[in-house]
């Protein structure tokens, strides 16, 4: 009864929260800064799923939640809900990005070249125990400094998909001359209806749970789907957020954000089909899995676990994690309502005597498993 005490619930939850914080060090501004500086990929992931580009707030959310990712994303999302929309950024294309990494698995070489950029792909995953002993490599050490290439890399690269389009291998797309950003459907402001507008689908993927997208994307890759993805292009980049000056109307850069995107292709009937995912921050696993799902969801009759409704609803990090933990809440009214039925069913099926302690448990269980088909979830 303590957990639904008739009095004192408010006090209990306050103390419970205090105890949670007491079991870890208090958060300081320096620590928040430290998270930003040392864990950019973690910050990226929280910003991506939180759909708010604010490294400092994301780091604060991580610190405040003790590193509980779903809590951190929720903190950021809840904060985001309170922020007014002051302006719409100008839509950009890859030509507007400053690309650091751009690779293609579809071709040995591509126009503009394969650019490895920053990556741990080819690192040996060995824990550097020296660090624990305080023998860290010095910053001046030549081994740790990037050696500049003879020729500086380009900052702009054409899309591999454009080359395929020129070859007629991918269906051409209509690119409108001018897009008013305010006209783009916004998944945070409109209810999602299935089938989802393309903008909603891509936005939902951009802020989807990385683990969830990976699980479903992997299911598709492993053979529960109907397509085999080839990474046509994956890129990590910086992008300027261009907004119009409220007075002069002149565009200016309000800041620079880390963005990433991937295109995967698969053989269609007469052309290649393409799947796409982009997100804020650099998160390559999510991009490839998300782009695969994008392609899979466009199939005429995808595997049930890979249709749009299934994927988009079940990879929403805040909804899925929130609903999962809500089962900690008391459900005794609904349970009691079900028990009222169960008692009578046992009565009818096994006679009044069985309703007592003599009930043959196995029999009841067998009946219950039958029940599950026609009993619906009424205890949520």
């Amino acid at each position, binding site marked *: 009864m303590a957990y639904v005490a008739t009095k004192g619930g408010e006090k209990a939850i306050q103390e419970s929260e205090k105890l949670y914080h007491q079991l870890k060090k208090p958060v300081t501004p320096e620590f928040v800064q430290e998270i930003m500086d040392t864990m950019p990929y973690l910050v990226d992931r929280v910003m991506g799923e939180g759909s708010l580009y604010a490294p400092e707030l994301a780091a604060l959310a991580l610190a405040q939640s003790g590193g509980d990712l779903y809590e951190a994303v929720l903190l950021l999302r809840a904060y985001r809900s309170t922020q007014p929309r002051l302006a719409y950024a100008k839509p950009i294309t890859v030509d507007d990005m400053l690309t650091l990494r751009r690779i293609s698995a579809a071709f040995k070489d591509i126009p503009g070249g394969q650019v490895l950029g920053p990556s741990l792909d080819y690192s040996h995953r060995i824990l550097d125990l020296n660090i624990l002993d305080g023998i860290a490599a010095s910053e001046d050490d030549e081994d740790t400094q990037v050696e500049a290439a003879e020729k500086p890399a380009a900052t702009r690269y054409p899309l591999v998909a454009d080359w395929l389009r020129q070859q007629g291998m991918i269906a051409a797309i209509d690119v409108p001359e001018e897009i008013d950003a305010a006209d783009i459907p916004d998944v945070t402001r409109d209810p999602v209806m299935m089938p989802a507008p393309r903008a909603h689908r891509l936005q939902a993927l951009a802020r989807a749970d990385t683990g969830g997208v990976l699980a479903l994307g992997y299911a598709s890759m492993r053979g529960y789907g109907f397509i085999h993805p080839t990474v046509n292009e994956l890129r990590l980049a910086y992008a300027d957020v261009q907004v119009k000056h409220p007075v002069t109307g002149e565009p200016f850069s309000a800041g620079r954000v880390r963005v990433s995107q991937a295109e995967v292709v698969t053989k269609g009937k007469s052309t290649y089909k393409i799947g796409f995912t982009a997100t804020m921050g650099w998160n390559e696993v999510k991009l490839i899995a998300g782009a695969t799902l994008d392609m899979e969801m466009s199939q005429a009759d995808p595997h049930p676990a890979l249709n749009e*409704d299934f994927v988009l609803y079940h990879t929403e990090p*805040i909804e899925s994690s929130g609903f999962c933990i809500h089962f900690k809440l008391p459900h005794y009214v609904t349970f009691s309502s079900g028990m009222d039925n169960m008692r009578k069913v046992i009565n009818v099926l096994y006679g009044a005597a069985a309703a007592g302690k003599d009930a043959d448990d196995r029999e009841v269980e067998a009946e219950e498993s039958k029940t599950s088909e026609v009993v*619906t979830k*009424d205890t949520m």
Partner: protein
Amino acid sequence: MSLIELAQPNQGYSYAFLDAFAKRELRRRILKGIAIPGYQVPYASRELPIARGWGTGGLQVTLSLVGPDDTVKVIDQGADDSVNAANLRRFITRMSGAETTTDANQATIIQSRHRITEEILREGQTLVLQVPNPEPLRRVEPDMAKARILHADADYGQMWLVLYEQLVRFGRYIQGASYPVMVHERFVMAPSPIPRWDTPDLHQSAHLTLLSAGREKRLYAVPPYTNVYPLEFTDVPFEVEDQSEWACRTTGERNKFMNELPQDDGSSVFELSDTGYMEKLVNHQRGEDVTIGTTYYDSEGQFYHDGYLKPRRSRQESPDA
């Protein structure tokens, strides 16, 4: 001059947390819901500073309606002081400055999870029910796009089939809470997981009921004085939970919805689920001056709309006879 200097300093939150745009959207959706009783209206559903699935749908509705002059009651499983109800109440008052109460008669807005009060709500009061799953057809059609078509066609054959199957296998309806209802002779609606005991309260009620699912982004309404009937075959009546033998250990009250509390010796004791009502009964028994409202069920267990609930079938009577 830098951008930082130009920008406004970090501000506190809007009144009642949601920004004006979100509130306006919610109010419009609520009006639409009232105009089409039982119809699930999609809405954007903002993230709130409590977890999804913990009442964010109800909370958004409450926050979009609440004003400083309101008096709010928040209950979870009938209890005002369960940790979750306490938490939601703390948030609503912190953000809106509204008064709070545990007395159903005093409240202008009652946000609830899984219960309706024992005392009859009156005109002008708003009951906000938190909804985990707004779609009564989910059980038979998990695809939401297809379920919408079934609603549009009023094609509820499968819902009836589920009840038919229950009767075939168990001789009775075994749907516990969230018993499906037909609203305004048009839409089948999930009344949120309230026990069957509370389901009749929605019928021809004087108050407004708003139901909102934040995670699923749907809200719907039962306007005052609207017909709400549980799905039941003409020859097998819907029955509320049978607690006629139970008496509240604290007040001695009967024929109200009870919590069953298991005891060490294998027996059970019982206590009123509606703690606000229990508090008033206790105070009344102590001789304090409290106003106890009329209840949906009288002390004999008779529902206040005569004839709405058909007589309970005897235990042996099988519909298959």
